[in-house]
């Protein structure tokens, strides 16, 4: 059985945010508004987080694309009182929207702050209402949502595999963010398949995980930028 994971090469990432846009469209994520941004209520299943370093005139900004980490030991799952979030045998930390009661324990428990609460009924500008992705349900007010690794794409890929009576092939299932990445900084696949590109990259000396010390065992793995890798491997 596959263990789905993702590698993001920060050297290749140009911070273009194509992944962010692709994700919002693919997953019917409501439009974000400036007033809500001020309240910290915007929803981004993947977002670009800036890290400022140094001081003027030596200042520098690094960017980090931040989806759900799909931890092997997810703290959010521990706290969910109704089993609305759970980890699948294939390692996807799922969110069953219909099951969620909106208590927001999980948003608090998540050290990566990648879980989002729907404070309002979904609100799309008129032309967008006709343009929803039918493969993804629109979440109602009062439930928590997050990156699902586009698991609706897995459902369809698996249906094709069943139709052709064969196992799922590598590359058949890819989340929208990975697919859209212009410099191909994101790689997706089975971490348990030692020959897959993700598994190989995950073993790179540049590989690191966010807040590794918490023991969450994220399955989103970053490749450090050249300068840092020079110092860490050097």
């Amino acid at each position, binding site marked *: 059985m596959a263990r789905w994971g993702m590698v993001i090469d920060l050297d290749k990432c140009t911070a273009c945010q194509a992944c962010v846009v692709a994700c919002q469209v693919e997953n019917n994520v409501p439009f974000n508004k400036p007033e809500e941004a001020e309240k910290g209520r915007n929803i981004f299943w993947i977002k670009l987080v800036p890290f400022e370093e140094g001081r003027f005139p030596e200042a520098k900004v690094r960017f980090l694309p931040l989806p759900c980490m799909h931890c092997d030991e997810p703290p959010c799952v521990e706290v969910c009182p109704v089993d609305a979030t*759970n980890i*699948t*045998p294939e390692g*996807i930390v*799922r969110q*069953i*929207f*219909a*099951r969620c009661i909106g208590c927001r324990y999980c948003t608090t428990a998540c050290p990566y702050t990648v879980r989002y609460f729907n404070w309002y009924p979904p609100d799309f500008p008129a032309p967008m209402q006709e343009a929803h992705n*039918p*493969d*993804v*349900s*629109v979440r109602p007010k009062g439930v928590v949502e997050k990156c*699902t690794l586009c*698991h*609706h794409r*897995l*459902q369809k890929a698996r*249906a094709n595999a*069943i*139709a052709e*009576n064969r196992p799922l092939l590598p590359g058949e299932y890819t989340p929208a963010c990975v697919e859209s990445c212009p410099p191909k900084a994101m790689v997706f696949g089975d971490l348990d398949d030692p020959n897959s590109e993700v598994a190989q990259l995950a073993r790179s000396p540049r590989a690191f995980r966010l807040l590794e010390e918490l023991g969450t065992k994220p399955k989103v793995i970053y490749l450090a930028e050249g300068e840092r890798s020079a110092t860490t491997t050097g």
Partner: protein
Amino acid sequence: MDFQKSILEIRQRNIIMIGIGALIAFFVALVWPFTPSIEQPIQYNHQKHIQAGLECSTCHTLYENSAFAGLPQLDTCSTCHQEPLTESREEAKLLALIQQAKPLEWKQINRVPDHVYFSHRTHTVDREIGCATCHGPMEERTSPPTKPFFKWTMDACINCHEQRSATVDCNGCHR
């Protein structure tokens, strides 16, 4: 004394109101079961068409390749219904619609919520589950169904999935 009288009046009014209410409830109850909850544009007859030798896929054209079975549009019907084939009033309605080129707006009876993924291709083609297993004997229907053969609760899906060792993983069905 005044006080007692007014209480009496109120009681009388209440009794009349209850009487009227009961009468209304009685008539509603009389009519209720006979009003079909769903009006289809045409009282379509499955039995006659299956007896005429049609396959389900003639009209439900999508299930072989997609999640949906599909409900037929006028161009499907008009391949046969150019001239009246019967004296049926329903057929006359159909012919009128064809002439005015108005779309056929069937109301879908079987439905799962949009947070559930169900694929006809997977079930009917790949795993060869007959339509009747889920929809009952459609070929005997002389009028459109007003309710699904199975109430599509989660249990309805899971019962069969457990029997046939298909997925019971939440992510298999939910999206």
